[in-house]
């Protein structure tokens, strides 16, 4: 039963609660005293864990907590899972390594990705294919799933629904159409949430899984918002498409990227019977960069979708545009510290966890959600949910594979800056064309003549090669990898060549 049906009852409850809250006997140095009997009197419902947001982070946290026997409430502002989450997604094979419950998962929109394709286009207005790499998984990957496939693409509305249902089956209560607008506090700790309309729910631990614009982070005073250089404003277009055509034309090359001068890495994701094209590349949709270049991300995406190879592919699969998506994603080069407070832990995008290359964030949300639920369980068991106690969540996160994705983060971000930079991207594309054609592919001239060009090609492209070395060498060093001294020295010199040629287009 929830309180607040009648104004008089509400006033009485408020008075009783004020009396209860005002009494210091309930707290001992920020420690939680179970309040079930008080909840019984006041009608304020008590839980062990309240999760704000039913995205992958929130539902995985709720599932883990419910399976551990805790009483869990999930509050989600939308009417159904993923109603507010744009863009569809590719789930990396890491998720099959780490979450046994998705083994064998089959969803109608799924398409397996045993190939990845990167297209490098000529500059606008032509935007024609100049170079293309298609690759299968590498045999050197450290776990079996990664040697078999890259990702599985699927629609969020199906995957988020699957996770929310799983949490519910495990015993969590999931309420939709419920916007959290406030946090309840007990002395030093957060002790519950308030919904718009006044309903209040209490729990010793709140897990903020409310995404990139996290209100829980804000209400807890952890941060107001991410900085403009930490957020990308990503747009995508959803197209319905023919399943048979997709099977023939793209098969299992479910993830394709389009690079080119002025086209910093649009992605094309193919599902069972639809296609998403998103962009305009991670760097070009970085909000601080948009402010500098004055190039509107939505317009840039819609212009680059017109690239002839993209249009040919869309026609080949009978694609018809169906929906326009926009959503922000945190894109940070290092992990944040501000992810917990007394009674509160932030997970997924609310904690800024998407990795610093492609801003992949679903596996990160799931991983952190599970960690937060495990810490909640321990802390509640120890009867201590203070900030000091929950700080172990940050420690666990720092020891986890989620943190390892941030090693070399600054360099990873610079890699995309190079790929998104019109001059550097053009030079790199032409270098790859020259090397491939002259060394392997051409029957146009005698082989000995073309192969001999490799050296001049490399010499001419020394600046761009040094730029790449300036990114990769520090990354390898940061990862603790062994490097021959000559290469390390070259990398140090490469760093002098700067990231992206310092050039930014103006329109």
């Amino acid at each position, binding site marked *: 039963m929830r309180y607040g049906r009648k104004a008089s009852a509400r006033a009485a409850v408020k008075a009783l609660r004020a009396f209860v809250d005002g009494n210091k006997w309930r707290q001992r140095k920020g420690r939680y005293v179970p309040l079930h009997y008080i909840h019984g009197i006041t009608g304020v419902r008590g839980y062990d864990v309240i999760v704000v947001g039913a995205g992958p982070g929130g539902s995985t946290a709720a599932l883990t907590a419910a399976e551990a026997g805790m009483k869990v409430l999930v509050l989600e*502002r*939308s*009417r159904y899972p*993923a*109603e*507010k*989450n*744009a*863009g*569809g997604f590719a789930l990396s094979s890491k998720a099959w390594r780490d979450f046994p419950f998705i083994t064998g998962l089959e969803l109608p929109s799924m398409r397996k990705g045993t190939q990845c394709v990167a297209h490098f286009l000529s500059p606008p207005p*032509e935007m024609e294919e100049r170079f293309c790499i298609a690759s299968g998984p590498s045999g050197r990957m450290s776990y079996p799933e990664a040697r078999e496939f890259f990702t599985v693409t699927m*629609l969020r*509305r199906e995957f988020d629904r699957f996770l929310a249902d799983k949490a519910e089956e495990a015993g969590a209560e999931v309420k*939709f*159409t*419920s*916007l959290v*607008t406030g946090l309840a506090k007990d002395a030093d700790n957060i002790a519950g949430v308030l*919904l*718009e309309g006044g309903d209040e729910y209490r729990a010793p631990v709140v897990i903020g899984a409310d995404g*990139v*614009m996290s*209100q829980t982070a804000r209400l807890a005073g952890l941060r*107001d*918002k*991410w*900085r*403009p250089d930490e*957020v990308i*404003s990503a*747009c995508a*277009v*959803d*197209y319905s498409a023919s399943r048979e055509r997709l099977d023939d034309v793209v098969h299992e090359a479910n993830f394709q990227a389009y690079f080119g001068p002025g086209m910093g890495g649009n992605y094309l994701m193919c599902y069972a019977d*639809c296609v998403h094209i998103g962009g305009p590349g991670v760097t070009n949709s970085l*909000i601080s960069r*948009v*402010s500098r270049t*004055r*190039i*509107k991300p*939505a317009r840039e995406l*819609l212009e680059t*979708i*017109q690239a*002839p190879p993209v*249009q*040919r592919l*869309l*026609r080949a699969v009978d*694609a*018809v*545009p*169906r*929906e*326009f*998506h*926009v*959503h*922000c994603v945190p894109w940070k080069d290092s992990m944040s510290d501000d992810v917990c407070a007394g009674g509160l832990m932030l997970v997924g995008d609310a904690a800024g966890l998407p990795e610093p290359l492609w801003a992949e964030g679903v596996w990160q949300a799931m991983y952190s959600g599970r960690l937060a639920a495990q810490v909640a369980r321990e802390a509640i068991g120890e009867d201590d949910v203070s900030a000091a106690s929950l700080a172990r969540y940050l420690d666990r996160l720092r020891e986890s594979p989620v943190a390892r994705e941030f090693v070399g983060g600054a360099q990873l971000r610079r890699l995309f800056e190079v790929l998104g930079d019109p001059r550097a991207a053009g030079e790199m594309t032409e270098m790859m064309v020259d090397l491939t054609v002259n060394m392997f592919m051409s029957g146009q001239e005698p082989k000995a003549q073309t192969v001999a060009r490799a050296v001049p090609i490399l010499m001419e492209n020394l600046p761009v090669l040094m730029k790449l070395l300036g990114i990769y060498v520090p990354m390898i060093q940061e990862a603790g990898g062994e490097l021959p001294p000559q290469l390390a020295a070259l990398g140090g010199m490469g760093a002098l060549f700067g990231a992206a040629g310092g050039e930014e287009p103006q329109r």
Partner: protein
Amino acid sequence: MSARKKAGEVDRFALSEVIPATRDFIRLDGERCTGCGDCAVVCPMDLWELRGEKAVLAGDYKEKCTECGSCFIACEEDAIDFSYPPGGTGVVFKFS
């Protein structure tokens, strides 16, 4: 180059659905606004414009806004306050 037609024109507005919010969820503090225009550049739905030296939010933003929050992040003067519309209202993505 192929003379064939484009694979469907993308009309952002025709391709998005919004259940209008019953209250405001974006607020502008005109005192703080310096007229830099960053909100207008980043907004995917063109809902901000500069009039004189100040940003102005479209009167019908509740019918078009995608709740992306890009304007809120872009504004370094903290002139824009952004929250979410009431539960169950606002943008609807069916194929995300």
